[in-house]
C-alpha cells in the first residue's frame, strides 16, 4: 500500500523506500527507488531524459502518488521550482512573488515584507513593477525562485530550472543558488541533465538509469560549501564529473 506520512521524529526530510510508479496507461516510470534527503543536504539527480526524474519530484511534492513503496516527508514547507518559470503574465514581479503567500492566506503586509526580502535575495531589486514579458529568461527564473523563497521552504525541489538558460546565466544562477542554500538553510533536491552542474551544486549526486528509472549510483561530493567557482577547473572536480558521466553511460545501456 503506498502511503505518505508527515512525521516529526526522523532525521531526514524526505525518504523514499522502494518507490515505484506505474501510470494508468501502463508506463512504468520508476522502480525500486530508495532515496533520502537529510537536512543540510543538496541532492542532485541526473539521468537520461524520460527516466522518471520529474515523476520523482512530483511524487515528493504530492502532485502524484506513488503506486508502490513508502514516501515519508518531514516538512510541509516545500518549495517547487518548475523547468518553466510559470509566472502569471498579468502580475508584475512583486505580485507574482507574493502569489504563494497570498494563496496560503498570509496577511497583506506580511506577504509584502516577505516578497521584498525574497526579491532582494535573488537580486531583482528595481524590477518590482515589471511584467514577466519584459523580463529575460534568467530574470523570470529568479522571480520564480523568489516566489518559492517566500514560503521559507525546508525542502526545495528543482526540476531542471536552468535547463533553458544560456551558459553564463546558468553559471551565475548556480552560484546564487549555492549562496541561498548556505544562507537560507533549506535542503535541496535538484534535477538536471548537466553532470558538471550536478557536481558543482550538490553535496550528493544520484545517477538514475533509463526508464524505468532506478538509482544506479550515488556519489558524495567532498568539496566544501559555499563552492569556489574555480573548483570547476581542478582535476578533482574533473575526475568526479568523469565518474558520474561514466555511471550515467553505464546505467543508460
Amino acid at each position, binding site marked *: 500500500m503506498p502511503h505518505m506520512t508527515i512525521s516529526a521524529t526522523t532525521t531526514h526530510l524526505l525518504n523514499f523506500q522502494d518507490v515505484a510508479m506505474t501510470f494508468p496507461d501502463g508506463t512504468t516510470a520508476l522502480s525500486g527507488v530508495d532515496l533520502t534527503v537529510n537536512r543540510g543536504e543538496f541532492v542532485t539527480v541526473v539521468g537520461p531524459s524520460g527516466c522518471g526524474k520529474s515523476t520523482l519530484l512530483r511524487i515528493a511534492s504530492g502532485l502524484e502518488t506513488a503506486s508502490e513503496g513508502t514516501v515519508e516527508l518531514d516538512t510541509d514547507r516545500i518549495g517547487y521550482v518548475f523547468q518553466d518559470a510559470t509566472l502569471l503574465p498579468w502580475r508584475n514581479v512583486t505580485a507574482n512573488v507574493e502569489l504563494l503567500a*497570498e494563496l496560503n492566506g498570509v496577511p497583506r503586509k506580511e506577504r509584502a515584507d516577505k516578497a521584498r526580502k525574497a526579491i532582494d535575495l535573488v537580486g531583482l531589486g528595481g524590477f518590482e513593477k515589471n511584467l514577466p*514579458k519584459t523580463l529575460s529568461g534568467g530574470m523570470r527564473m529568479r522571480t520564480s525562485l523568489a516566489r518559492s523563497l517566500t514560503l521559507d521552504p525546508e525542502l526545495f525541489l528543482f526540476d531542471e530550472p536552468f535547463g533553458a538558460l544560456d551558459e553564463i546565466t546558468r553559471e551565475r544562477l548556480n552560484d546564487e543558488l549555492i549562496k541561498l542554500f548556505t544562507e537560507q538553510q533549506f535542503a535541496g533536491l535538484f534535477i538536471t541533465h548537466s553532470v558538471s552542474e550536478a557536481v558543482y551544486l550538490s553535496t550528493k549526486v544520484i545517477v538514475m538509469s533509463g526508464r524505468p528509472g532506478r538509482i544506479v549510483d550515488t556519489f558524495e561530493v567532498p568539496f566544501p560549501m559555499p563552492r569556489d567557482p574555480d573548483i570547476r577547473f581542478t582535476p578533482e572536480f574533473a575526475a568526479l564529473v568523469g565518474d558520474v558521466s561514466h555511471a550515467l553511460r553505464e546505467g543508460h545501456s
Partner: protein
Amino acid sequence: MSTQVKTQPQTITVKRSGRPLTTWGPPLLVLAGILAIWFVISALLGDRDFLLPPPNEVLTQAFFNPSTMGDILQSLGRTATVALTGLAVAIVIGVLWAVAMSQARWVERSLFPYAVVLQCIPILALVPLIGFWFGFDFFARTIVCVMIALFPMVSNTLFGLQSVDIGQRELFQLQKAGRWTVLVKLQFPAALPAIFAGMRISAGLAVVGAIVGDFFFRRGSPGIGSLIGNYQSRVQGAELFAAIITASLFGVLIFAIFGWIGKRAVGKWYDFGSS
C-alpha cells in the same frame, strides 16, 4: 548577509509600429476602388439607377438631408439600445454558462451541445415565432439579439478558462488552492483575452441581431431595420443606402470600441497581434 547581483539584466521593450500611411493607405485604396466600381455600375444602370444610386446622390439626397439623417440616426439609436442590451445580457449569460461548464466535465458534456445547437438554429426562421411568444417589441428584439450574440461568448470564455497552463495549475494545486481561488485568481484572468476577443465578435453580431429583430418586429418605435424595410418598399434608393451604410458604420464602431476596451484591459500583458 544577502545575495546581490551586480549585473544589470537586460529588459525587453515591446513596441509596435503605428505609421499612419501603412495603416490607413491600403484600406483607403480599396475604398476608392469600391466607390469607382459603384459609380460605373450605377452609370451602366441608367434610368434604373434607383437599384444602385451613385455615391454622390447618396451623399446629397440622404446624408446631407437633415430630416432623412434625423430619421436614420433616431432609429439607429433605438437599434443601438437593443443591441447593447442584448450584448450585455449575452456577455453575462455566456460567461456564467462557460464558468459552469469549466467546473466539471459532466456539466460541460451536458451543456456544450446546446451552445452549438443555439448557433446552428436558423434564427431567421425562429424570429416570427419569438414574436408570437414574446410580443413584437423591445423584449422580443433583445431575445433575438442575445440568441445571435451568445455563442462566441460561451465558446471563447470556455476556451479561455480551459487554456490555463498546466504548470500554473499545479502551482496552485501545490498550495492546495480551492476551486473558487483557482477560478478567480488563475482561470478567469487567464481567460480575459479570449473573453474580450469573444466580446468583439458578439458586439458585431448583436448589432446584426438587433437589425434583424426590428426588420421583423415593426411594432412599437421602429429601429433602423424597419426603416430600411420602409425605404425598400418605397424604392428610396439613396435613403436605403444611407441607412445601410450608417448601420454598418455603427457595427464597425462597436467592433472597434470593444477591441479598444480589450486592449486597454489586457493589452499590457497580452499581445492580441495586429488589427
